[in-house]
């Protein structure tokens, strides 16, 4: 084939994918469940802020109890930076759960409403169709994390102000406010990769299960399993380093005194590899399967 013709075909392929992506975005933001998901995220955030306000002082007292004997404390530790950290701690479980429901729903509803058959009657290849779904899933995940970051920083700083961040990771680490902010930003960026992984995984699960309820159950199981496996020591360096479940708390490295950039880079690279692997597997299965 002439290289020009090949280039033209690629352009045509991509223009269809682009059109499909636009359609997917239209469908995503047309459905009420997308806004419901964002609203529920916001509600969880408010609950976390409220709970942290009431429980935070108690926890800080416990953390610093032994030091109170020896020290006077001057300044406020229950501040916006600590609350953003707490939101991160809890939202990295709730957010993927909500993302998985919305993202997998973009495919399973197509199966349920049989709109997928209508789409496939058009001059659209299966690969283009599912690729557009994955792209939109990633974009929606990015939007959700951005929404989460903006709301948590603005709410926390507005109501609780700035101050030193105290984090307990085997040792009590104190970060000045100026240092806490970039660390929290890095944590959001690192967590985003993890969120994309779970979104992509849920779409792949959707490809396999097709049914919405089954997909949600399997996705939730996958998420819970990942969280359980994160805490388990496999007694094997390769498994402890490379296994996908071990990568989801990479964001915590930004709250160690000296950031282990080598580990962060390796984990981020591995997460991207897993994302591509799940997309590849999902696309392959979708292309091979017949639309019933």
């Amino acid at each position, binding site marked *: 084939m002439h290289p020009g013709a090949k280039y033209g075909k690629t352009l045509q392929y991509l223009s269809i994918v682009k059109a499909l992506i636009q359609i997917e975005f239209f469908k995503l933001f047309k459905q009420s469940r997308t806004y419901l998901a964002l609203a529920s995220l916001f509600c969880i955030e408010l609950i*976390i802020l409220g*709970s*942290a306000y009431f*429980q*935070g002082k108690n*926890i800080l007292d*416990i*953390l610093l*109890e*032994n*030091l109170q*004997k*020896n*020290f*006077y*404390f*001057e*300044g*406020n*530790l229950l501040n916006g930076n600590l609350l953003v950290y*707490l939101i991160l*701690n*809890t939202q990295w479980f709730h957010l993927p759960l909500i993302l998985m429901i919305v993202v997998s729903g973009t495919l399973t509803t197509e199966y349920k409403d049989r709109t997928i058959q209508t789409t496939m009657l058009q001059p659209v290849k299966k690969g283009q169709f599912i690729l557009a779904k994955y792209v939109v899933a990633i974009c929606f995940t990015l939007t959700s994390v951005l929404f989460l970051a903006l709301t948590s920083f603005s709410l926390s700083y507005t109501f609780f102000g700035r*101050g*030193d961040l*105290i*984090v*307990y*990771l*085997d*040792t*009590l*680490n*104190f*970060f*000045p*406010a100026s240092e806490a902010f970039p660390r929290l930003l890095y944590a959001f960026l690192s967590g985003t990769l993890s969120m994309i992984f779970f979104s992509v995984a849920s779409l792949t699960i959707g490809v396999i299960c097709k049914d919405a309820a089954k997909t949600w159950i399997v996705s939730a199981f996958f998420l819970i399993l990942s969280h359980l496996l994160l805490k388990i020591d496999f007694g094997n360096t390769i498994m402890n380093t490379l296994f996908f479940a071990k990568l989801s708390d990479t964001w915590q490295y930004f709250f160690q*005194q000296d950031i282990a950039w080598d580990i962060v880079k390796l984990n981020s690279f591995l997460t991207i590899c897993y994302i591509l692997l799940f997309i590849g597997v999902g696309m392959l299965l979708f292309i091979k399967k017949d639309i019933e």
Partner: protein
Amino acid sequence: MRKYSLIGLFIISSCTFVHAQQHDPDLLYIKSRMDSIQSFSVDLTLEVDISFIHMPSKKAKMKYTKNKPIKFSSADFVMLPKRGLDFTLNSLLSYSYITVPRGEEIRNGKKYKALNIVPTDPNSDFSIALLLIDISNMRVTESEISTRKDGTYKLLMNYDKPTAILPAKVEVAFEVQRIRIPFNFMGKDTDIDRKKMRESGSKTGKIFLTMSNYIIEHIR
């Protein structure tokens, strides 16, 4: 009769001895120097050396006024030691006490007068203190205070000039208990069992204080 005379002599001589040891004159002189301070303010730089705490060096301002609690101010969060900032020896000598000479101690080739302070008032919060006094400059350079509740503290004080009455650097060593807590506010771990979380044993922590810009007001 002879027996009673001997007992009487023993009691009198014991009383005289105890009286002689009640207040060491050098310590009294240092206390009078300290008592001449009406107030002072100083900029503090604090560094914490505790194995399970990572904290950058912090800055604070300290304001002392005679017979008033010490006041601190800082732009950010700061942990200040409860012991080691009482440069005027107020907390040590505020209750009745006796002093017991312990001879001389040598530090870095220099001789210091060693002195025990034993409180005679049960309200005192320490049981015994050991002071090393620099006789040539008439100031305290080292102290070890055994408190009734908070363990033992050791203070090392360095002065920037021979005439200085207040230290330029202070090292505070103390015992501190280590804790382990899962930092998860919202999960099921919220109800923390304090006893379980606390590891047995204690660690020695150190605080390094550097003082600058003393503004001292003496009693007129």
